[in-house]
């Protein structure tokens, strides 16, 4: 009995947390002008680890400010593609270009794990994201602004160990945002979160992307997440782009709408039919 009560309580608490996105922003309809994003051109990209060829020729153009989701089964190479885009691995063949001179601070990655420094307070963790600008006089101010953007301004002096999983991931997001990146790559950033926290994080991601207009690349195994967030869904199979699906639903997206559900179904059937063939 007591456990049942406790569960009910924590769920309602989560549900109220899921609504932290202010309604005024959600009501805004027009797409923002993407001034800060970077386009991305990938040509003939290949990558092997030992004898295992993970990516077998990827050609891809992502226009400025597009939100692209990459889905596929485990081991299909989607995370490798993301790590190559973020410059975390060396390219074997082919090229990735951003159509402009890029600085390290222009491209940021968010991982499944928050990767916060346990021995630094929340604000100091966000300041890490400033890269070479860490030493500037307005570093703290910028970090505070980024924390406010993820609705965690009141946690600035906490240790990461006292935060919940969702809060840690929001700090990691603030750290990625603080340098105003022009490309933001997400490697299953919500994979370790519970369902309700995940939905609230998805809304937060959509909001900051609409506000800041960076080019977003999201690797996920969750097709419904991909459809809910992205303008375009890429399905990767055996190291190649097997399908390239546009998602034209209006924003902000209504979760569970018939239109999105239909798209999700057809992408899932692509993924599963590949299963049948092998």
């Amino acid at each position, binding site marked *: 009995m007591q456990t049942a009560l406790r569960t009910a309580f924590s769920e309602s608490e989560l549900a109220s947390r899921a609504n932290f996105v202010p309604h005024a922003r959600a009501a805004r309809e027009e797409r923002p002008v993407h001034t800060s994003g970077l386009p991305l051109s990938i040509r003939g990209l290949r990558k092997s680890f030992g004898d295992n060829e993970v990516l077998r020729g990827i050609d891809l153009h992502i226009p400025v400010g597009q939100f692209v989701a990459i889905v596929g089964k485990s081991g299909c190479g989607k995370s490798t593609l993301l790590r190559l885009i*973020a410059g*975390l691995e060396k390219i074997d063949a082919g090229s990735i270009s951003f159509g402009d001179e890029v600085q*390290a*601070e222009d491209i*940021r*990655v968010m*991982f499944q*794990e928050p*990767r916060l*420094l*346990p*021995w*630094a307070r929340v604000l100091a963790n966000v300041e*890490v*994201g400033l*890269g*070479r600008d860490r030493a500037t006089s307005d570093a703290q101010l910028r970090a505070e602004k980024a924390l406010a953007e993820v609705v965690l301004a009141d946690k600035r002096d906490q*240790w*990461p*160990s*006292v935060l919940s999983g969702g809060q840690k991931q929001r700090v990691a997001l603030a*750290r990625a945002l603080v340098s105003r990146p022009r490309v933001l790559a997400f490697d299953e950033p919500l994979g370790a979160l519970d369902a309700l926290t995940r939905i609230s994080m998805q809304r937060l991601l959509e909001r900051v992307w609409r506000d800041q207009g960076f080019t977003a690349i999201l690797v996920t195994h969750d097709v419904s997440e991909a459809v809910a967030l992205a303008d375009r869904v890429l399905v990767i199979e055996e190291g190649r782009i097997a399908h390239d699906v546009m998602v034209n639903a209006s924003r902000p997206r209504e979760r569970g709408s018939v239109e999105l559900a239909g798209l999700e179904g057809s992408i899932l059937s692509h993924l599963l039919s590949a299963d049948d063939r092998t």
Partner: protein
Amino acid sequence: MSLIDSVSLPRNFRLTRMDGLIQWILPLAIIAIWQVATVTGFVPTRVLPAPSDVVLAGWKLLLSGELIRNIWVSFWRASIGFLIGGSIGFAFGLANGLSQLSARLTDTMLQMVRNLPHLALIPLVILWFGIDESAKLFLVALGVFFPIYLNTLHGIRTVDPQLIEMGRIYGMSDGELFRRVIFPGALPSIFVGIRFALGIMWLTLIVAETIAASSGLGYMAMQAREFMLIDVVVLSILIYALLGKLADSASRVLERATLAWHPAFQKR
């Protein structure tokens, strides 16, 4: 070690106010029983003097200045030996944790020396240094070296590689990476090494002073044995226990201050 204790205990198990008092119940009870046993003649005072006699002996030595002088000499040897051995161990731990080349060059040799009980070197050390200060410092430094070396090395090697990757992505230089990621990550392990080393430090010093010295607590105990002053013998043993506890408490305070971020050290 306190780290492990408090992690394994559930939160509500921790006593906050009582904690300070509760640890002294057992020692005080033992002293009370001991006093009763010796006063009633159940334990002959030739075997074990009454606690009151030990206190009296301590008071006399304190007045003569002999006690303070010997404690100071032992304390000085312990801390200088610890500083020398500890810094060398820390330096090797850093070097071998950060550089593959350095590890390949020195680790095998250090592991070989480690398997040698350092107290077995006492006869050799006496031949080399005689019985003056350098012999004791050498032995303490050697004993302290290994726990600090091994735990510093282990701490650095086990820093979360994902955090290191994160630091690189966010453009940290090598120095910054060390200062902000690697060193704080290795610190809990380094403290485990320090506390092990403190134990070995006293052990080595007691043995060395008992065998070959002309001052210090161990020397005081051996002199008292010659004259059958059993109360002084027991007094020196108790002072060793007290000094050991003091060193441990000091390292705990330091640990608490520097590892405030660690869940094990957070209040509630």
